């Protein structure tokens, strides 16, 4: 539990300690929210015609894990190109620690998708959603920068270069994820 709090509040140190279980649990939860929580919420919200598709859940789970491996490979290759000496296994072990905002995003997206009508045209719920969503995006971006500095050990211009190149891949991967059915990209 202490490691989770550390990853939440002091990501810089958590990246140095590189506890793989924090990553594994956070990734698993993010994938589960995508595959199981969202359909359950649909049924709970009263959409009884909504069919739970076990095969699709399995497909999304495999895709989620694959997506994680792909983003780690992208991070590894691009950072290597910019002169980082970190190994592929370092990325696999630590990138999952940046998944707190991703997990929260998965929950928020599932809720807004199912209860869309509550948020639409509502100033109050709109602002709540806004704050959550903007915060999540900023949070992940901050973690991304800390990650490039602490794990890939890139500084200055190299860090900015890697940031931009990987950001392009992240946008492409997010699009691909959404296209394949993962509403919240596992990246």
């Amino acid at each position: 539990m202490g490691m989770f709090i550390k990853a939440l509040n002091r990501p810089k140190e958590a990246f140095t300690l590189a506890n793989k279980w924090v990553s594994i649990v956070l990734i698993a939860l993010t994938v589960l929210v995508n595959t199981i929580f969202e359909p359950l919420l649909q049924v709970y919200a009263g959409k009884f015609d909504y069919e739970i598709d076990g095969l699709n859940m399995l497909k999304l789970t495999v895709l989620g894990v694959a997506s994680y491996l792909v983003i780690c490979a992208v991070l590894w290759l691009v950072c290597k190109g910019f002169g980082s000496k970190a190994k592929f296994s370092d990325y696999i072990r630590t990138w999952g620690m940046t998944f707190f905002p991703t997990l929260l995003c998965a929950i928020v997206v599932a809720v807004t998708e199912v209860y869309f009508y509550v948020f639409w045209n509502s100033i109050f719920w709109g602002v709540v959603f806004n704050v959550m969503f903007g915060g999540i995006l900023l949070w992940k971006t901050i973690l991304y920068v800390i990650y490039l500095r602490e794990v890939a050990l890139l500084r200055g211009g190299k860090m900015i270069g890697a940031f931009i190149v990987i950001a392009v891949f992240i946008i492409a991967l997010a699009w691909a994820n959404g296209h394949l059915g993962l509403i919240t990209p596992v990246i």
Partner: protein
Amino acid sequence: MKKIDPFEGIFDNMQNNSIPTDEQKQKMRAFVLAEGVSQGESFMQKLGGWITVCPWRFAFCASAVQAAVFTLIFGAQYTNLLLSVFGG
């Protein structure tokens, strides 16, 4: 005849076990370096440090400001735009 103290071996073992291994020492060193507060930081460094510790704190504060400002300007339209892009 020398009396053998059965506890001596146990205490020796305990002492040896409590000495950190090289790997643990490396980790401690990295931790101390990360924790170490340097003297005379500039404002930007202090701000960077503040953002790095509890990044969600800065993220949600900044997001609250943008949400308030843009909602005041554009009203529910701004929310609807975000919803249509991100909300599924």
